[in-house]
């Protein structure tokens, strides 16, 4: 009788391991789960917690948030020729995506910064066109100044209800003003605090991907790698289209772990946006697009605990809801059962989380591999990447995951392109991949 009751309670409680907040139509959907629905009791173990966020659907055009975007374009000497022409085309494509009540500014920089089009309503298309037409290349690269001036323009009309962005297009390394990745990262951080995200678009093979990536990640924006300028217009069109589909901004996920669980690290995310203090993990996530998925994976260490059903974590997702133009919060609690049953434990694998974990670990490995390759330890880097690929491949077949399969192929390709010219290109590809939400690799999100 007691065993039956225990079983019943257990199964009921097991169900409770999946915590999902009841989502109404205009709310971000939050799902949190551990990689094993059942944890081992009296055992020190590593577990993974995954919080998945899904953007809700925007109710047609009306619901879409007005944009407030500054397009910052590199017009240094390297942009001369078709690149600058394509950049202009891209800007025009972006402009076409904007509604009349969107705000747009166009800033161009070489060794100094010119504000070609100060922040203005997109309805003033003629004068914006004129500004775009004045774009001409030649000079050095004052990237820092360009971004700051872009942010200045965004600040002019910045309101909570708008999607406030700086979209930076550069083909080269910054050489005027602060030019290191860490400095630009700092800039990104301070811009994030203001609520301005910087999406960086690297054009060609001459830009500093570390810099661009840090700036984007720190500020909560996206990073895009465009190999050839003729792709610019299309990418801009897509990106600006996607900007309009942002449903949640200033997304902050706060996970509070129960006693006995220790947060180790958040996998595969920029260190800038993560803060782990004691039992609390705070992660600032980039904006969420409609119907798009983003997640974070937290590695944690579990102390030997007696069997019990424990609330292991509380997850608070706070964000600014674009649809309602109001702050929003989704909270949930996660419970887990501690059991001595090893069998049960191993069978309680949650594939979705496992896949996510694998992806994230691979991501970490990939970062390491880049470091090795940067240090010239090519062979080691190669081996690491190949191992990475293998692990992913195994996982792909184990869990039947297309995502893993695709990723493993990518890593294989990485391993083959560690030398010479290809490495320059591949590094950019890898960096881009590393910062992108794995579910949005196909997208050009701005």
């Amino acid at each position, binding site marked *: 009788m007691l065993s039956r009751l225990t079983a019943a309670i257990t199964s009921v409680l097991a169900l409770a391991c999946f915590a999902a907040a009841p989502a109404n139509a205009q709310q971000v959907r939050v799902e949190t789960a551990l990689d094993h629905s059942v944890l081992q009791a009296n055992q020190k173990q590593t577990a993974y917690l995954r919080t998945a966020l899904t953007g809700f659907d925007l109710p047609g055009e009306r619901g879409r948030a007005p944009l407030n975007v500054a397009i910052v374009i590199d017009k240094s000497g390297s942009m001369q020729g078709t690149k600058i022409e394509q950049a202009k085309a891209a800007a025009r494509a972006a402009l076409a995506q904007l509604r009349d009540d969107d705000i747009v500014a166009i800033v161009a920089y070489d060794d100094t910064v010119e504000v070609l089009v100060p922040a203005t309503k997109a309805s003033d298309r003629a004068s914006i066109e004129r500004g775009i037409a004045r774009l001409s290349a030649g000079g050095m690269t004052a990237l820092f100044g360009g971004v700051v*001036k872009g942010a200045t323009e965004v600040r002019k009309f910045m309101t909570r209800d708008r999607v406030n962005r700086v979209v930076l297009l550069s083909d080269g390394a910054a050489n005027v003003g602060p030019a290191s990745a860490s400095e630009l990262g700092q800039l990104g951080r301070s811009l994030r605090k203001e609520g301005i995200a910087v999406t960086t678009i690297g054009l060609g093979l001459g830009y500093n991907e570390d810099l661009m990536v840090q700036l984007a990640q720190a500020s909560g924006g996206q990073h895009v790698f465009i190999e050839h300028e003729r792709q610019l217009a299309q990418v801009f069109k897509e990106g600006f289209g996607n900007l309009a589909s942002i449903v949640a901004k200033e997304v902050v996920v706060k996970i509070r772990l129960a006693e006995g669980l220790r947060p180790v690290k958040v996998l595969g995310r920029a260190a800038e946006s993560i803060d782990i203090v004691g039992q609390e993990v705070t992660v600032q996530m980039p904006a969420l697009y409609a119907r798009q998925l983003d997640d974070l994976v937290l590695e944690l260490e579990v102390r030997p605990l007696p069997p019990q059903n424990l609330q292991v974590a509380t997850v608070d997702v706070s964000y600014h809801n674009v649809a309602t133009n109001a702050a929003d919060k989704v909270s949930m609690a996660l419970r887990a059962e501690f059991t001595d049953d090893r069998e049960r434990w191993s069978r309680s694998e949650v594939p979705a989380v496992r896949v996510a974990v694998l992806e994230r670990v691979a991501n970490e490995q990939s970062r390491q591999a880049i470091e090795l390759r940067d240090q010239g330890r090519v062979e080691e880097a190669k081996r690491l990447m190949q191992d990475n690929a293998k692990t992913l491949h195994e996982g792909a077949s184990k869990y039947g995951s297309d995502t893993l399969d695709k990723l493993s192929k990518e890593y294989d390709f990485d391993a083959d392109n560690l030398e010479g010219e290809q490495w320059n290109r591949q590094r950019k590809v890898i960096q881009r991949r590393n910062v992108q939400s794995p579910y949005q690799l196909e997208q050009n999100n701005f």
Partner: protein
Amino acid sequence: MNANARLGLLLSAMVVVPLVAVGFVGWRLVGDQEALARHSVESGFGERLKSLDQAVQTIVRGYERDLARYAAELPRTTDPQALREALGRQPRTSLALVLDRKGRLVFPPLVAGIVSQRELAFLERTRPVWEGGLLESAALLGALDGKASGPDRGWIAYFFGGGQHFLWWFADGRRVVALEVSGIDLMTELVSQLPETPVAGEDTSDERTVLADATGRIVYQWGSRAPAANERPKATVGMSEPLESWTLRHFAAESTLPGAIAGTLRTALVAGLAGLGLALGAGAWLIWRARTRESRLAAQRVSFVNQVSHELKTPLTSIRMYADLLKSAHEDAELDEAEPAARHLAVITRESDRLSRLIKNVLTFARGQENRLAIARREVVADDIVTATLATHGPALAQARIAVETDLAAKASIALDPDAVEQILSNLLSNVEKYARTGGWVKVTTRVLAGPVRLVMRVQDRGPGIPTAQREQVFEPFWRASDRLSDGVTGTGIGLDIARRLARLHGGDLAVVDSEGSDGQAVAGATFELVVLAEPGPKDAS
């Protein structure tokens, strides 16, 4: 040198010299002005940079005000979490040091498990500040106990990891809060408020201002000018706290304003010189015209005189010639000289001679007035001239019943102008005919003397003579013994003037001397003595 040429030179000098002088001085002045303008432009740049620095200062002060507010608003708790949250909410800073009144570090907590990685890194880089006692002393010396003996707030700038970092501290008597201000944040603040380069086409000034940090690295710049590699800035200004080691540099093209100023001044100078030159030139030209007008008038007069004389001479030639022809034909006819025809002829001949002499005199006189009188010496026998002249005057003298006596001893051939001598003698004889008729006698004496070789001729009459007082006066042109027409005195009064000029041209002279009788005693009458040098004198015209 020709008088006109001299005048021309003088007038040219009158125009050129002041122009050159003014031009030179003016050019120098313009140069000075340009240098001055350049200097003031450059110091103007400096001023501009200083005011930029002021603007930056304003930004920084604004920053400081915000920071002060944050520092004040920071909860007075030692709870790290509360402080963290409070810091997290602030846009400008996320890290801070908090020291208690004793200068002990309160936040971030130096406790593992509580302190975050970021805070740890922060503590690491600010170690010299909280460990080294920098803030401590500030806390102690500062307004920690409310006794504001020193500053209660300030900046600390330090270098770490190749970058410059800033702390802004604020002491309120109970604690010291040092907020981290990242260099990037400061830069971001500055850059967002500093000007950008105006869009091409709108900005015509070729300048650039550069903001450089402590290491000299360009933080931000604006302006369309791309300075050359070795170009030096027109102005450099160090900035104020906390960016003391930062600089503002201004590059500009060489000649913006000073060149323009100089150009304008130079244009004005040139215009002024042109005006001056014009005025002087006009003046000079007017003077030239006025002076040369005299020459022109004189020339006109001369040509008039020449024209008139030519006009007069031509018919006169015919008259004389035909009178002569008549006479020779008459001689052929062997007519009596007393015949009326002979007498008539004699008159015609005589009067035409006289007319001829008069014309010659007038011409000579006119030339004399113009100082264009000249003589041409030839080796001649003076007596021949005397004889010929006396022959010409013969009829007239006979008609005037003046007996002619001669004492001619100038047989030597000497160099003189025979026409001039003839004219002199002719005029003297005419005067005798006119004024000394009553004497009924004239004597011509000639001698050639040496040392220097000269001809001395005397013409003596027994007329009323010339009073001593008038001996000079008689030579003045137009002076005649009497102006009253009724006195029956004829003549123009120019004869003696001409005669003397001609004499003087020979280096000699014509004068009235005492009349002597053959015994050397003074007698009545006038004696004219002509001295004519045989050697060319200074007055000879070449």
